[in-house]
């Protein structure tokens, strides 16, 4: 899209980076077929572009072996819906998406992995790419749309991505980019709950997948400026439990290495992350913190 006149960049111009989960392992088990899902999402994307003619959309596919950019409305040669029946958005996006899915599947065959390891998709990768793209928009000067990220995710969390996803969340928080999540899987996603909570985005788990478009358009189409005036869904609690480094088990109480802050579910003699050898636990710590608390009085 050509650069817009200055005064048009009002508060409500959005750059929406959508991360689409294309993991075949999830879609083969989902009650909503992938094609239906796509038609909901495409209508939603079109409606974003129609809300404001200088809104911008970037779509990144989150596969189970790779991630890639599949659509950027600022690069599209004929934006909008003027050329006949099928909007440019749809044809371009669908073609790229198809290529991506085949490539992603080939990678799977190449590695010939046991299928259990690939039930999660590479959210950390697509989040990192989205943030790099948004930084580029930030660099482009003071006249720019307001960026936000929308994760449309169905696969379950991959515990091995924990550190990378947390890094992305903190970076998004520092640059004040909200991460919205629309989670269509069966259980809640602790990663996305934390991502939305920490960055000030909205986390929503649609009850009726047939009405996905309605959820998308009523909750996630709102620009950041208008959100202040709306009653968006409130969080139903955030799972802040940690997973231990030793078994990747989710725990609500545990031990922390004082040198590297690694989390363990039970007492160990030696830290597996940093190699520190531990002295006696607990008793020493308790007396020391008591001492510390007394100091102000003395």
């Amino acid at each position, binding site marked *: 899209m050509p650069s817009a006149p200055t005064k048009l960049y009002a508060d409500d111009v959005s750059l929406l980076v959508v991360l689409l989960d294309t993991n075949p392992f999830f879609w083969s088990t989902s009650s909503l077929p992938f094609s239906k899902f796509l038609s909901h999402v495409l209508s939603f994307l079109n409606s974003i572009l129609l809300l404001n003619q200088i809104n911008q959309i970037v779509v990144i596919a989150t596969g189970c072996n790779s*991630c890639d950019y599949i659509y950027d409305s600022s690069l599209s040669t004929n934006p909008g819906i003027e050329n006949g029946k099928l909007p440019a958005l749809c044809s371009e996006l669908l073609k790229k998406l198809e290529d991506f899915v085949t490539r992603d599947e080939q990678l799977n065959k190449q590695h010939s992995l046991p299928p259990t390891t690939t039930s999660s998709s590479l959210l950390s990768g697509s989040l990192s790419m989205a943030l790099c793209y948004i930084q580029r928009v930030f660099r482009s000067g003071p006249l720019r749309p307001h960026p936000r990220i929308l994760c449309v995710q169905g696969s379950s969390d991959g515990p091995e991505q924990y550190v990378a996803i947390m890094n992305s969340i903190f970076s998004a928080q520092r640059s004040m980019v909200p991460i919205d999540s629309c989670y269509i899987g069966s259980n809640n996603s602790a990663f996305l709950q934390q991502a939305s909570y920490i960055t000030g985005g909205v986390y929503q788990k649609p009850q009726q997948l047939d009405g996905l478009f309605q959820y998308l358009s009523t909750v996630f189409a709102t620009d950041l400026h208008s959100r202040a005036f709306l009653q968006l869904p409130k969080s139903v609690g955030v799972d802040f439990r940690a997973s231990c480094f030793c078994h990747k088990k989710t725990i609500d109480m545990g031990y922390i290495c004082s*040198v590297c802050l690694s989390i363990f579910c039970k007492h160990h003699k030696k830290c597996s992350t940093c190699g520190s050898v531990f002295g006696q636990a607990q008793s020493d710590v308790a007396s020391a913190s008591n001492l510390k608390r007394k100091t102000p009085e003395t």
Partner: protein
Amino acid sequence: MNNGNGRRLNGETEEDDDDEGSEGDLDAWERTYADERSWESLQEDESGLLRPVDNTTLYHAQYRRRIRSLSSQATTARIQKGLIRYLYIVVDLSRAAAEMDYRPSRMAVVAKHVEAFIREFFDQNPLSQLGLVTIKDGIAHCLTDLGGSPESHVKALMGKLECSGESSLQNALDLVHGYLNQIPSYGHREVLILYSALSTCDPGDILETIQKCKKSKMRCSVIGISAEIFICKHLCQETGGSYSVAMDESHFKELILEHAPPPPAIAEFAIANLIKMGFPQRAAESSIAICSCHKEAKVGGGYTCPRCKARVCELPTECRICGLTLISSPHLARSYHHLFPIVPFDEVSPSVLNDPHNRLPRSCFGCQQSFPNPGNKPSLRVACPKCKQHFCLDCDIYIHESLHNCPGCESFRHSKSPIATEE
């Protein structure tokens, strides 16, 4: 104008001595040009025209130097960092802090950057605590006790910004030593002294105090605002801290922010330990409960202690009922990038770029910015040694300084095996 400008330039080396003299000769409008040194941001191009300095490659070179020095430090396979820090910042508010060689004064500049430092410190050291001490009239005062809330420290500092009298290094060290001696053995004891004065006015033998600090394993670092002083250097050498002297405001900012990332852990300085902690869940926004900290009924928010189920309002805290340390796991995760740093990217050599047989990616893997045509200019792209993806210089800096993930490595499963992904 020629006159004034010339004098200013000649007198630059001994600025401190004849500051008043040269300032008096300049008119106000001339002074703004002289002080801002606006000519430094211009350069002459081939045809003799003035152009703004091209900063991107310059910035990137600076950044590469920084990152190389960091990665050379971390040569050991396992990285041990002192992540639980107990730090006292000692701010010298003696007469010397009123000097105006920094604008508007040393004191104001120090306070401004201490504020930024405090925020950065808590961002990078989630479980650490910090306290403030000031030196004034030869006496050290404790401004804030060790605590974990940046706001209260910043407020206390901004409320107490006036200076007078002499400075006393010994009094400050004695006071801080008294506090730091009581902290748990797994914590790293640190003092950061921001010293404006050129002398210290002590009641006793400061060398004895320095030995005392050394024995208590306090790591003392000093940033001088004026010039190098022997006793500060001696203090830092003895206690294993770092000593530096700021040349100007931006240098001072750089020096103070160097103290924000956790220092390498030194085994004998702190004893490793396992600390028992709880990770409470955040309650739904509509739930109602009585909190144990304010003893009030509150709607929404709040966290529940996993051991005794008491409600608390804020994290991190210690449960009032059962004494368990409560923390949210994201809080801990803020420091994990220190444990799993990403390798510096390699510059793509011009020979690779100009080789017509190589089919190189046309745009940055991270942000999709297309690369300019490779001429004989310095390379404007870098490559990740692991996943071999190419990135632009801006993404390189963003990835290493804020994101701490390589988008290329993250978006290919099993990217650790050397499979070329481009084919």
